[in-house]
Structures are given as C-alpha cells and as structure tokens.
C-alpha cells in the first residue's frame, strides 16, 4: 500500500523537474529503490501510470532500478552484500556495520521530449 504514497510523491517531483526545465512531455522516469524499502516495482509502476493519466506524464515509461543492500564493516572495512538483512561483518563478525546501499528511494532522472 505504501507504493501509492510513494507514487503520489514521485509524480509531484517529476512535475517539478518538468516545469523547471521548460515543460514538455515526459518520456521516461528513472527511480532507484533499495530492497529494504519493501517496494513492489510492479505496484509502484501501476500507481504511477494511473496517476499520470491525463497529465504530461501520461506516456512516460517508469524504470525502477532495484538496489540490493550492501554494507561496510567499521572495524575491518570489509564491504559485503547484506544477507537476510543482517549487518554482521562476514570477515570479522563485527556488529553494527554501516549500510551503504539498500535504503534508497530516489528519483534520479527525467527525460523530456
């Protein structure tokens, strides 16, 4: 269900970018979504397309790049893919590693006609 809130906010942001760049029609929208956000890409796309109807965003293709969770160990600097959501260093066993990627929810590109 949170996909709807995200789609509403996304449509507003794309519209801001469009107006700030001289208007025109939106051809595509690029979004990065981290796996920890538990967003279902198909549902987000569906809401986006629904909300875009009758607007200059109507024909836009939404491309969702899913980002896997990665982290870095604070003790030994090992960088690793986060398995099962746990921030435990696979090399030295330290807890509390820093999440590097996986919590993104970003608009990264808009292509205008």
């Amino acid at each position: 269900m949170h996909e709807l809130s995200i789609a509403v906010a996304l449509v507003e942001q794309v519209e801001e970018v469009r107006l700030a760049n001289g208007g025109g029609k939106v051809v595509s929208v690029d979004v990065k979504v981290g796996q920890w956000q538990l967003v279902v890409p198909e549902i987000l796309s569906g809401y986006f397309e629904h909300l875009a109807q009758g607007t200059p965003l109507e024909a836009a293709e939404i491309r969702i790049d899913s980002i896997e969770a990665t982290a870095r160990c604070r003790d030994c600097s090992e960088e690793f893919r986060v398995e099962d959501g746990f921030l435990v260093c696979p090399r030295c066993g330290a807890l509390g590693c820093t999440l590097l990627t996986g919590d993104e929810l970003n608009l990264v590109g808009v292509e205008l006609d």
Partner: protein
Amino acid sequence: MEIKVLHNILEVNDRAADEVRATLAAAGVTVFNLIGGPGTGKTSLLEQVIPRLLDRRRVAVLEGDIATTRDAERIGALGVPVVQLLTGGGCHLEAVLIAKALEEFDLDALDIVFVENVGNIACPAEFDLGETAKVAVLSVTEGDDKPAKYPLLFHEMSALVLGKTDLLSLTDFDPERFERDVRGLNPKAPIFPLSCRTGEGVDSFAQWLEALHEGREPAVRPRADGDSSW
C-alpha cells in the same frame, strides 16, 4: 533532453517531519512512534504504560487506524487527550497528518505524546513523523523471524518491546536467536521483554521512556545525518 537529478522521493514527508520536530522541540514534548503489526499489543501497551506515567507526566495519544474509533475509546478511558487519525485504507501515518493532529493539543501542557501507528511493520518504518524515537512493538506469538523479514524497522528503531512473554512457553519463539538477529541489525537499541497481562517488565519500559524524555538517554535517530548507522 535527459535531466539527472537526485531527489529523495519522500522529501515532502521528510520536510513536514522536520517541521513537526521543530514544533515539538520548542514545546519540550517528546514523541514516541509505536510501530507494530495488528494485534501485537500496541494499545494494550499504552493501557499499561500511561497509568505508570500519569502522576508525573502529562501524556496524550494520537491513534492511527485504518478504520473504527475502538482504540481511541480504549485510550480515552485512561483520561488522557486522544486524537483519532483514520487513514481510510492507508497503511501508515505520514508527517502531515501528525502536524494537523497536533493542532488539537495544547502542546505547552504536554510532556509525552504517543503515536500509535497503523498496524503494520513494513510501511510505517519508512515515514518519518518527526518523532523523538521509533519504538518497535513485537510479540512472541509473531515468531522470532521478523527482524530478517523487515530489516528496516529493526534498523531504524530506538527501542524494541517484545510483548506477550507470558505466552513464551506455548510458542517456538527462540529468545536467543531473536536477540542475535536483532543485534545483527541494531547493536544498541534496548529490548524490553514484557507482558501486558501480568504487567511484568512494563516498569522498565516506562522508565526508559522517562529517561529519554529527560534527556538521560540519547534519542537514537540513525538516519539523521544521512548516515545509516550510529
């Protein structure tokens, strides 16, 4: 024409949350955002905790629900101000709803506000409400595998309540495995095992709430500086 940008999609919510935070800081009000699944015991927890605070603290509650005012009626029976937020199907609360609801209260006459989020452990974790601290509420009957399934909540929380401990012997919940998994996501947040039926463990949680309100405990906000850890 291709335009590269980098916008947090939820920045409108985050801006509203920052305004809420500023308003609350000016009034000296501490806000706890309780996040847990349906039936985990969030309202029962408030029914236990609020009477333990009332002789020293002025408390109010924002009740988030998809529908019905049943929870607000239960909280109203405690004699504290309560505002019901009905999301009409929405699975989480957002900061603009909190900003609006707080207008119903005289903030200068309050110390602590509890926000009972909509029953859900996925979506509410993403939406900053301007709270002082997120408290995850889980119960032993839900199983010990939840941190692995919903890492964001356990990463973002400042404390964890593990309820229904009176039922522990009837379940396959493994406390050691659970704690190991929680620590794999969040090494520092205190864990409060408790039972709202027996009252066991509730005092410790109430003491932590007060310590945080008085500034004796840090309010851990892992993402405040854009860094995901602390």
